[in-house]
């Protein structure tokens, strides 16, 4: 059974304080630099926050940009001071965390990461520990935004996948709906008043959000059509011409999860050595370069082909769903204006849809 509670706007801070009693609370915060952006930061009393969609998804809560997998130290043997032993420390700590006011596309991002990190042949213990300690309170979107296309790829402005609680803005505040057991017990522990009497307004708001979206093209054939395009290098060259291989599209993506592993430090020195895991990205030419110098994806077109294929063909082959939640961040953050929707539609031979969705088309030069 779902649990519904009402969170009045003026009770927001008190609610965050309630959450912060037990856990780290991450909220979207506006930053005004050369380019204004919204990022998740730890909430504390008095921190101004926003309910806007974040520029950077909260992926780092489960997969930090860089983390220590273990430290290694070469120390004298207790029994024999002339000998040394190597000591590895892979103790992992996961801080209980609640994310507040992320969006459905980013919550679905967690579901995309869960499959390879939790349900593959091997489980990733670092990710698993953080994920277990994570609670996701998602704000459903009031309308679609310029670059998003969540409803093309199985989501929508109030999609519950990956969330523990959905918040929908209604008059005077937010209606909170539990999605998981975790979300339900959180709401029940809170002092929020019952919200069942406001269900109609919630449904009305969600319906309005859906109605604001354009028509979604049918992507059922995407895995097959993209695989068929594999050898059509002209196609990939054409769509990648402007790309500068900066990797922004992957670093901003809530569903990209590739990483690299490197060592640094020296186990024989006092400060020891560490093995690190850091975000990596398949748009970089170093990603697949082998020690011999051979590189199966030397050209940027080959790397774009891999990125698109992974999202819409091979991840679906392995896991049954797209590894794109349609958040549109790769579109809005690409310095050269490359639009993944246009590539996708063109690969599917749905050029006519491109015009109606207002996405860029290389052919028409728009």
């Amino acid at each position, binding site marked *: 059974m779902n649990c519904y509670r009402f969170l009045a706007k003026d009770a927001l801070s008190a609610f965050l304080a309630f959450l912060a009693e037990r856990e780290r609370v991450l909220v979207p915060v506006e930053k005004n630099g050369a380019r204004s952006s919204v990022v998740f930061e730890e909430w504390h009393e008095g921190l101004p926050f926003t309910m806007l969609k974040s520029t950077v998804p909260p992926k780092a809560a489960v997969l930090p940009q860089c983390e220590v997998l*273990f430290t290694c130290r070469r120390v004298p043997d207790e029994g024999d001071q002339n000998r040394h032993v190597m000591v590895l420390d892979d103790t992992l700590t996961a801080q209980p965390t609640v994310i507040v006011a992320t969006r459905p596309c980013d919550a679905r991002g967690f579901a995309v990461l869960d499959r390879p990190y939790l349900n*593959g042949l091997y489980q990733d*213990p670092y990710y698993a520990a953080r994920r277990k300690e994570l609670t996701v309170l998602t704000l459903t979107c009031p309308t679609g935004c310029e670059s998003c296309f969540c409803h093309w790829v199985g989501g929508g402005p109030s999609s519950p996948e990956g969330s523990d609680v959905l918040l929908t803005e209604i008059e005077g505040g937010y209606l909170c709906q539990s999605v998981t057991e975790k979300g339900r017990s959180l709401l029940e522990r809170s002092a929020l008043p019952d919200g069942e009497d406001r269900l109609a307004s919630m449904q009305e708001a969600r319906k309005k959000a859906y109605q604001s979206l354009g028509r979604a093209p049918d992507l059922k054939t995407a895995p097959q059509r993209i695989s068929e395009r594999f050898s059509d290098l002209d196609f990939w060259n054409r769509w990648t011409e402007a790309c500068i291989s900066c990797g922004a599209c992957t670093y901003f993506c809530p569903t990209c999860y*590739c*990483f*690299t592993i490197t060592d640094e430090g020296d*186990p024989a020195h006092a400060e020891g050595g560490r*093995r690190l895991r850091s975000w*990596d990205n398949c748009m970089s030419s170093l990603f697949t370069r082998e020690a011999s110098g051979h590189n199966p994806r030397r050209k940027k077109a080959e790397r774009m082909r891999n990125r698109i294929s992974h999202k819409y063909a091979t991840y679906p082959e392995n896991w049954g769903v797209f590894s794109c939640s349609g958040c549109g961040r790769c579109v809005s953050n690409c310095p050269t204006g490359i639009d993944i929707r246009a590539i996708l539609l063109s690969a599917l031979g749905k050029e006519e849809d491109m015009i109606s969705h207002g996405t860029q088309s290389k052919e028409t030069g728009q």
Partner: protein
Amino acid sequence: MTTITNPRMPHGITPRPLLPHANAYAPMLATVHEIIEESPTIKSIRVVLNDDEAQRSFTFEPGQVGQLSVFGAGEATFVISSPPSEKRFLQFSVMLAGEVTAAIHRLSVGETVGVRAPLGNFFPYKDWFGKNVFFIAGGIGIAPIRTIMLHVLEHAENYGSLHLLFGARKPGDLAFKQDIPDWLTRSDLDCTLCVDRADESWSHKTGMVPSVLEELAPQPENTVAVLCGPPVMIKYTIETLEKLGFSPEHIITTLEKRMKCGIGICGRCNIGGLYVCVDGPVFSWKTLQGLPNEL
């Protein structure tokens, strides 16, 4: 031991043991026990796991790989080049290629290394029962061939005739010099050596692996060809095998990709939807033909 089969592997390969660890990223500690200079650029490193019980109970299948690490320098992938029956140590035969391999070459006996193993799939040797097996190795490709060939030779009664064609650029580059006299003389193996460039000491064949193979002309009937080596060698050798009449499912090879996690998560070793670290490194040519051409 928990075993698991990969539903995505088209030909039923024997189950793969999972790492005996909860944390698949944390290596087991091991000590360098012996170092063998195989050639100017290849060293075999024999390591013993520090935990006696782990060493005693360590099992793997021929063709499986390990991630060998020098702490502070990094980690790289190598096939376990000793046969599974070798219980005293694990051997990795390492060709000098870059940073991590250079650090491995600088190791001395008694130093501590990290090992994450066994990883990946292995040669489907049970499918070869009753068949002739023709092993073909080029350069460092002899490392995986050594483990599977020694395993097959230990169970020679299960197979037909066994052959090895082993090539290198020049005589000094041939690895496993300790093993070669045995391979040349034993009655259950027909061994041919070749080099691209011979010198006056050379008494074996001269020529590239594919052309020597063409000359040897193995009969494809009831025979499996197992080949490992650099990508160009693989490419031309497969062409020759097809010309000789070998069918794609009877050509077995191993692939190399840049790897990091070795457990199917970090995302860099894929060919289409398969990941070489968990779905490979062993593939039949038939499987490879069905995958995107991105070798």
